[in-house]
C-alpha cells in the first residue's frame, strides 16, 4: 500500500507569521488538540525540572541545594503543574483530537468554544507561572505559591500567606478551570450529538465512552473547586471568614470541598489512561477488546463511585469512626470496577498475537505499575494503615505509581500509537525502546524505594533530614532513578524531533487498526472525512478488511 502523497497545502510553506496566525485563530479540533498536548508536554518538562530539583536536594541528608522556602514552592508548583497543566491539557487535547475522528464527524459541537477553552487553559497556566515574577505583593514576601497543591486552610489565609502567591494559585487555576469546564461541556455535547450514521452508543469505540464519562466528571467536579476558590479569594481579598479559624471558619470544610473536587479529579486523570490502553492493547494483540459492555459499565461505575470517596484523603483529620468506615468501604468498592478493567485487559491479551511495539511496551508498563499503585491504594484505604503512613513518602510512592506509572506511561503509549496519524511519520522503534526501558527502570528506581522510606517514617514535603534516620540510601536510590528518567525523556524528545524531520512515512493505517481515525489520510485534512462514514460495529475498519467475518455479526 503506497502512502498518500504529501498534501500540496503542506508543501507550499507559508511565511512563519501567517502560519502562526493560522494556528492562533484556528477553531479546528486537531490543531487545538495538538496545541493542548504540546503545551502539556512543555509544562511536563517544567514540572519535571521542579521534581529534579527536589530529588537533588533530598538525595542525601542535610543537603543545601535549595532553601526551605524555595523547596515549598517547588513541590507546590510541581503538583499543581502536573495535575492542572500537564494531565488536564493532555487528556483534553487527546480527546479533542481523537473523539471527532473516532465518531466520524468534522469538528466538536462548539468549535469556537473549544478555542476559548484552550486559550483560557493556557493563559491560566501562564498566570500561575507569572507568580514567580508578580507574587511579591505589598510585603515583598511572596513568589510562587508555596502552600501545597491542595492549599490547606488556614495556611492559605492572609495571616499565614503574605503577598499574592496564593492569589495567583487561585486565579490561575480558576481561569484554566473555566476552560476545562467549557471543553468538558463541548466534549459531552460532541459525543451525544454528533455521532456518524450507525454509531449508536454501544457501537462507540471504548475510548469515546471513557472520554464521555471523563468529560461529565469534569463538568461536575470543577465547579465545586471554582466555588471554593472564590470563597478563599473572598477570604484573602475582602476579609471573609470562610476558612478563617479565628473568625469561626472551618479548616476542615476546605478539605472537604477541595477533596470533593480532588478525588474525582484523580479519576478524571486516570480514566484517559484506561481509554488509551483500551484502544492500544487490542490492536497490538490482534484481538477484539474483551468484555466491551462490562468495560463501559465499569467506567460508569468508577465515575459514580469516585464522587463518593473523598474523605479517604482526610482519614488522619479525626472525623468520627462511622464516617471513616463508610468512606473506607466506598473506597474499597471502587477497586471492583477497576479490577474488572484490569482483568479485561489481561483477557484481551490472552491468546492474542502480541506485537511488542513501543506503544504496547508502554501499555504493559502501565498494567504492571498501575496494578502496583492500585494495590497500595487499597492498603491506604484501610483506615488504621492510613494512620500509620498518612502524609509519608509511602503516599508519594503510591500516587506516583498511579499517575506517573499509570497516566504518563499511557500518554507515551498514546503518542507512539497516534503520532503516525498526527504527523504522517513513524516514530523510531529503536529509540522508542530505549526510551521505554530507561524510563521504566528510572521510574521504578525512583518511586519503589519511596514506599520503604515512607514506612521508615519519612514525611512528605520536608526539605531535608538528618543523617541518623536511615533514610539516606532509599533517597539516594530515588534520586539516581531520576537520572534514568531524564535520559528517557531526552530519548523521547530526540525521537520526536528526529522523526518529524526524517521519520519513515506512516501511511494511513500503519498499525492495521480498526477505528475510524485510521481511515483518514495521515495527517488528517481539516475536513477529516471525504465521505460521511457509516458504521455497523465497534470496529468499522475490521468489517471492511475482513468482510467474510465482520464484527456486526457478533454484536
Amino acid at each position, binding site marked *: 500500500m503506497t502512502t498518500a502523497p504529501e498534501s500540496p497545502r503542506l508543501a507550499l510553506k507559508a511565511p512563519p507569521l501567517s502560519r502562526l496566525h493560522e494556528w492562533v485563530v484556528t477553531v479546528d479540533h486537531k490543531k487545538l488538540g495538538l496545541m493542548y498536548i504540546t503545551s502539556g508536554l512543555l509544562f511536563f518538562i517544567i514540572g519535571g525540572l521542579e521534581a529534579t530539583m527536589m530529588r537533588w536536594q533530598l538525595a542525601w541528608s542535610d543537603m543545601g541545594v535549595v532553601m526551605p522556602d524555595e523547596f515549598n514552592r517547588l513541590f507546590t508548583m510541581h503538583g499543581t503543574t502536573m495535575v492542572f497543566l500537564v494531565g488536564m491539557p493532555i487528556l483534553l487535547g487527546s480527546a479533542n483530537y481523537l473523539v471527532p475522528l473516532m465518531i466520524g464527524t468534522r469538528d466538536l459541537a462548539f468549535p*469556537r468554544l473549544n*478555542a476559548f477553552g484552550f*486559550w483560557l487553559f493556557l493563559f491560566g497556566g501562564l498566570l500561575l507561572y507569572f507568580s514567580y515574577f508578580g507574587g511579591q505583593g505589598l510585603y515583598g514576601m511572596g513568589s510562587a505559591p508555596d502552600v501545597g497543591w491542595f492549599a490547606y486552610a488556614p495556611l492559605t489565609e492572609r495571616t499565614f500567606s503574605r503577598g499574592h502567591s496564593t492569589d495567583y494559585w487561585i486565579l490561575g487555576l480558576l481561569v484554566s478551570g473555566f476552560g476545562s469546564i467549557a471543553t468538558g461541556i463541548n466534549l459531552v455535547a460532541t459525543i451525544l450529538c454528533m455521532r456518524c450514521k450507525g454509531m449508536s452508543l454501544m457501537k462507540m469505540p471504548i475510548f469515546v465512552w471513557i472520554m464521555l464519562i471523563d468529560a461529565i466528571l469534569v463538568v461536575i467536579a470543577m465547579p465545586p473547586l471554582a466555588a471554593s476558590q472564590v470563597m478563599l479569594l473572598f477570604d484573602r481579598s475582602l476579609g471573609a471568614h470562610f476558612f478563617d479559624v479565628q473568625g469561626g471558619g472551618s479548616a476542615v470544610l476546605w478539605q472537604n470541598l477541595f477533596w470533593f473536587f480532588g478525588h474525582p479529579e484523580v479519576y478524571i486523570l486516570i480514566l484517559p489512561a484506561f481509554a488509551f490502553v483500551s484502544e492500544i492493547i487490542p490492536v497490538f494483540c490482534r484481538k477484539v477488546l474483551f468484555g466491551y459492555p462490562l468495560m463501559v459499565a465499569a467506567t460508569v461505575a468508577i465515575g459514580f463511585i469516585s464522587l463518593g470517596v473523598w474523605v479517604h484523603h482526610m482519614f488522619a483529620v479525626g472525623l468520627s469512626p462511622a464516617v471513616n468506615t463508610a468512606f473506607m468501604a466506598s473506597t474499597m468498592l471502587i477497586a471492583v470496577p477497576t479490577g474488572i478493567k484490569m482483568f479485561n485487559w489481561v483477557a484481551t491479551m490472552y491468546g492474542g498475537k502480541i506485537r511488542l511495539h513501543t506503544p504496547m511496551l508502554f501499555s504493559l508498563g502501565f498494567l504492571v505499575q498501575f496494578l502496583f499503585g492500585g494495590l497500595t491504594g487499597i492498603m491506604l484505604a484501610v483506615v488504621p494503615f492510613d494512620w500509620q503512613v498518612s502524609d509519608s513518602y509511602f503516599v508519594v510512592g503510591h500516587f506516583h505509581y498511579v499517575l506517573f506509572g499509570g497516566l504518563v506511561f499511557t500518554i507515551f503509549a498514546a503518542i507512539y500509537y497516534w503520532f503516525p496519524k498526527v504527523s504522517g511519520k513513524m516514530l523510531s522503534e529503536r529509540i522508542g525502546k530505549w526510551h521505554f526501558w530507561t524510563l521504566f527502570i528510572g521510574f521504578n528506581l525512583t518511586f519503589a524505594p519511596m514506599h520503604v522510606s515512607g514506612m521508615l517514617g519519612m514525611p512528605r514535603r520536608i526539605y531535608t533530614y538528618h543523617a541518623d534516620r536511615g533514610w539516606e540510601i532509599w533517597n539516594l536510590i530515588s534520586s539516581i532513578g531520576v537520572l534514568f528518567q531524564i535520559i528517557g525523556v531526552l530519548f523521547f524528545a530526540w525521537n520526536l524531533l528526529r522523526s518529524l524531520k526524517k521519520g519513515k512515512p506512516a501511511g494511513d493505517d500503519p498499525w492495521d487498526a480498526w477505528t475510524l481515525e485510521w481511515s483518514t489520510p495521515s495527517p488528517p485534512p481539516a475536513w477529516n472525512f*471525504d465521505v*460521511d462514514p457509516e458504521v455497523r460495529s465497534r470496529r468499522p475498519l475490521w468489517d471492511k*478488511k*475482513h468482510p467474510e467475518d465482520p464484527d456486526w455479526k457478533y454484536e
Partner: protein
Amino acid sequence: MDQQHQSEQHPVELPCPCAGPLIAAFGVTFMFAGIVTTWSVAIVGLSFALAGAVHWWREVLPDPREYEPVIDTHPDAIEARIGQVGRLMAQPTHRARIPLEIHPYSAGVVGGIIGGVAMAVVALIGSLASHGSLWYAVNVLAGTILPSIGDMDQTALSAFHGGALAVGLGIHIVMSLFIGLVYGVIMPLVPRWPLFWAAIIMPAIWCGLTLASLSVINPALEMHIEWGWFIGAQVAFGLACGAWIVKSEKISTMQNWSYLERLGMDSPGVPGMQAEDES
C-alpha cells in the same frame, strides 16, 4: 470504494477561523489578573473580553460562518483480506477447572442458618460456663464493630446491653449467611473429604487469621476472647453447615457441556460429549 456515494453527500462545511475566543480568553485572564495587580489591568481585560465576545458573536449570529474547503487529499482505499481471521480454540489441556456439579445456593444459605444456630449454641454455652452470663459472648462479638465494648471491664461485659445484642445479632446473621454461601460454593471444589475441610481446615484458617490479626485490628477485644470456646464455636459451625451442604443434592452446571449438548442433542460418540457415567 465509497467514492460513488460522494454525489449524495452534503457539501463539506467547516467553521471559519476566528480570533474572538483568543481575544476573549486573553481579556478574561487579565480581568482576573487585575485582582492581584491594579484595577487598570482589569479594565484592559474587560475591554479585550468585550471586544472578543462581540467578534465571536458576530461570527456565530445569526448563523455561524462556514467555508467549503478544497478537497485535495483522499484516504487510501481499504483492502479486504479474505481468510485471515483466526479463532481462539479451547485446548484439551486448558487449565480452567470448572465444577461439573455444584450444590444449590439455597443449600449454602440453609447450611449457613443451621451452622449459625449450632455456633450460637456452643458460644452461649461457653459464655455461661466461663463467665456465668449469656451476654458475654454477645457483647464480645458486638465489639468487632462497637469500639466502646473494648473498653469495658469483665462485669460490664457480662451485663445485658440492648445495642450490643442488636449489633451482635446482626453480625452473626450476616456472617453466618455469607460464610454459608461461601461454603456452598467452595465445597464442590475441595478434594476428597469435604466434611474434613468444612469442619477442620476452614475453621482452622479462620481462627488462625483472627488470632494473627486481632491484636492489630482490635487489641482490647483480644483480651476478652475465650479462645477454646471460640474455636469450638467455629468447628460447630463448620460441622453443621458442612454436613447440611454435603447432604444436599448436587445440580449439574452447563459450564463445560459441548455445544451439541447445550443444543439438547443426544448423540454418544461425538467428540466433546461428556461421558455418561459422570452425571
